[in-house]
């Protein structure tokens, strides 16, 4: 157990260090933040620029800047944003829950849709219900997320005025972003559920469950589904990780104050401290999700349980 934890810890540390190092180097190749800050200021001189850089701490050697940002993760003090000087942890503390909640909601929507549909498709393999489900799920794949999002906004916010078009302001504001992401994820997930179910359905113990006289829903949702859990959880975990860093576009469309927006703005503005913090936290989260997935393995499948 201890060995497992140690291994996990080293792995996490490696990922965080590597990712943040890559980002630190790459972002420094994209331009000088001092120039960005003084972009429209006229009459700026080289001396002014040097002052600005000093103010940002960019006069220090790279390795010190980088170590500083690593230290930031441990002390939860990532310094101040280059844009406006807001403490980075303040920004991150706001954005992280926003993104996490949205990601959870999206996963939830997708799982709630795709599991029954996937199971239905598997059970009626080759029949019209299966074909319909498969084809409909592809629609989610054929229009970009911002397009689907805009359509939803036009329908529910502009025309019907049921839901707020953007912003994070309570339960209603979650519905559309989560639905958009959920529908898109569902396209893949339905297939995944269908496939794994197909494999499980042919297993002997499913027949046995039927032979016991159990109802069909018990057979499918208790006996079969639980056995699909491993690949499903693995995939959902990956997907969740992807969501954390990947919903920039959705956050933009719904004006969601999340990590994606934060990161996007930070890259655009070459806001090193914010970007560094976002990246380190995201990679930690992703490592964390992987860990949770591993723990979940043991919970759903006793064969994987550690002694």
């Amino acid at each position, binding site marked *: 157990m201890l060995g497992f934890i140690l291994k996990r810890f080293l792995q996490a540390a490696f990922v965080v260090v590597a990712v943040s190092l890559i980002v630190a180097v790459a972002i420094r190749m994209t*331009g000088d933040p001092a*120039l960005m800050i003084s972009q*429209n200021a006229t009459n700026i001189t080289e001396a002014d620029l040097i002052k600005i850089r000093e103010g940002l701490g960019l006069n220090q050697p790279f390795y010190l800047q980088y170590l500083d940002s690593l230290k930031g993760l441990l002390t939860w003090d990532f310094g101040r944003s280059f*844009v406006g*000087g807001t403490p980075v942890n303040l920004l991150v503390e706001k954005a992280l829950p926003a993104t996490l909640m949205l990601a959870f909601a999206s996963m939830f929507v997708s799982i709630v849709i795709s599991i029954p549909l996937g199971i239905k498709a598997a059970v009626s393999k080759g029949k019209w219900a299966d074909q319909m489900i498969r084809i409909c799920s592809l629609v989610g794949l054929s229009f970009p997320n911002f397009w689907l999002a805009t359509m939803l906004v036009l329908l529910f916010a*502009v025309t019907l005025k049921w839901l707020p078009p953007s*912003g994070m302001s309570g339960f209603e504001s979650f519905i559309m972003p989560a639905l958009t992401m959920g529908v898109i994820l569902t396209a893949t997930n339905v297939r995944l559920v269908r496939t794994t179910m197909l494999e499980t359905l042919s297993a002997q113990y499913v027949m046995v469950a039927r032979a016991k006289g159990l109802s069909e829903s018990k057979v499918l949702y208790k006996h079969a589904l639980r056995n699909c859990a491993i690949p499903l959880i693995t995939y959902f975990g990956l997907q969740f990780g992807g969501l954390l860093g990947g919903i920039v576009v959705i956050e933009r469309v719904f*004006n969601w*104050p999340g990590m994606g927006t934060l990161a996007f703005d930070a890259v655009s503005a070459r806001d090193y401290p914010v970007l560094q913090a976002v990246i380190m936290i995201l990679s930690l989260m992703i490592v964390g999700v992987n860990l949770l997935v591993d723990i979940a393995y043991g919970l759903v499948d006793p064969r994987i349980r550690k002694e």
Partner: protein
Amino acid sequence: AGKLTVSSPQDPGSWDPIDTFLVNWASAATNIFEGLTYRGPDMKLVPGLAESWEELDEGKRLRFKLRQGVSFHNGEPFNAEAVKFTFERLLGEEGGKGPQRSNYTAIEAVEIVDEFTVDLKLSRPDPVLLTKLAGYGAMIVPPKYITEKGDEHFNLNPVGTGPFKVVGYEPKVALKMEAFADYHGDKAKISELEFRFITEPATAVAELQAGRVDLVIPPTIPVSMIPTIKADENLELVSTAGPTVYALRYNTRDGITADPRVRKALIMAVDRETIVKEILGGEAEVIGQFQGALSFGYDETLKPLPFDPEGAKKLLEEAGVKPGATIEIDIRGNDATFGEVTQAVAAYLSMVGVNATIRPHETNTLLNDIVPQGKTGAMFQQSWGGWTFDYDNTAYSMYHSGEKWNPYDSDAELDKLLESQRPLTDRAEREVILKQIANYAAERALEMPLYNQNAIFGINKRVKNFTPVPDSRLRLNEVEVE
């Protein structure tokens, strides 16, 4: 009474006047802060926190008589001390970390004459200084508050003397304000004012349509969405000439555009009137110089080159450019409207035998790498507009040798002209030289001037008494909502 919600495309991150150059800082902060001078929607310079001023020492000293009985939102009194503190902060250590300082370096010292009289001692005359005092870095800040709470606290919890005081700020989400009861001027008619930061144009418009936002300020609404707003019976579109002028500037050093005849020919090849009418829905004015009509230094006699493809072909032939010549145009990738304009330009160019390819860039890469390093193609996008509406701001940066925005050209005569007008405090004299510069640049065809774009406001009809401002510096104390 009532609440007004404004959608602004960007959160400046800090409300400290010395930290930023963003127009969207100004659109919110003009309600919080005041400068010694003030410039309203009519672009006239009027007294602000200073009741009057005079030029002394041949323009090297400005003496301000301050308004009395003014207090900051936190109750701190406004006086000469506050002015001195403001400028020393701006020009000192703290100001050095930000981009605003360089605009005010003409100020050498601030001298208090008495509690309500203060002198700005200048190292050289600065003809634009009085205008600059009306905005941005020159906003007067409360000395005690900042000294006690620190600069960092001030960033997020700004305190000024303006008609609205800040009651809550959520970074990247919203800035909430309330009418300031002790405001010295016309008190606000609305009780609450909220700025929401919405980057996506379509989202902002959707919010406007849904009635959750009352006013969408520039530069949000793309021309493509104008019909959408016009079609909505609850909404209204208000526009006014803005500061931003668009041009495709030339690489005057290499390639076919090194030849002024080619540069002229390309301008003539493009039907700018049609572009403005069709693509921009008429929300712009074609220009023949790199400034708009509101700008100080604008020469109304300098007309745009006419659309003349035949003449263009002839000029190109003269210059030895064969049909099928290719050029590259670098533009900002996130500016959809200008993207369309550029495509139209490219289409027109192809009609005179010049094939243009368009390279979109990430904005900051274009602005801080591609352009300054001279890595552009034959043409590149420049959209520019200083809130001061003074041509010097544009011309010096664009044409003076060695400037960041002038990677290719070096013209001794132009340099001389540019330098000569800077110390002049006589407005008329300066204006003559500025017009001269505009004509000189047009003669050499240093850029393809396109248009001066309007500032477009989307507004809910329940908002009354709203006057659009050209320079984004919105002060909303007059506005009422139903």
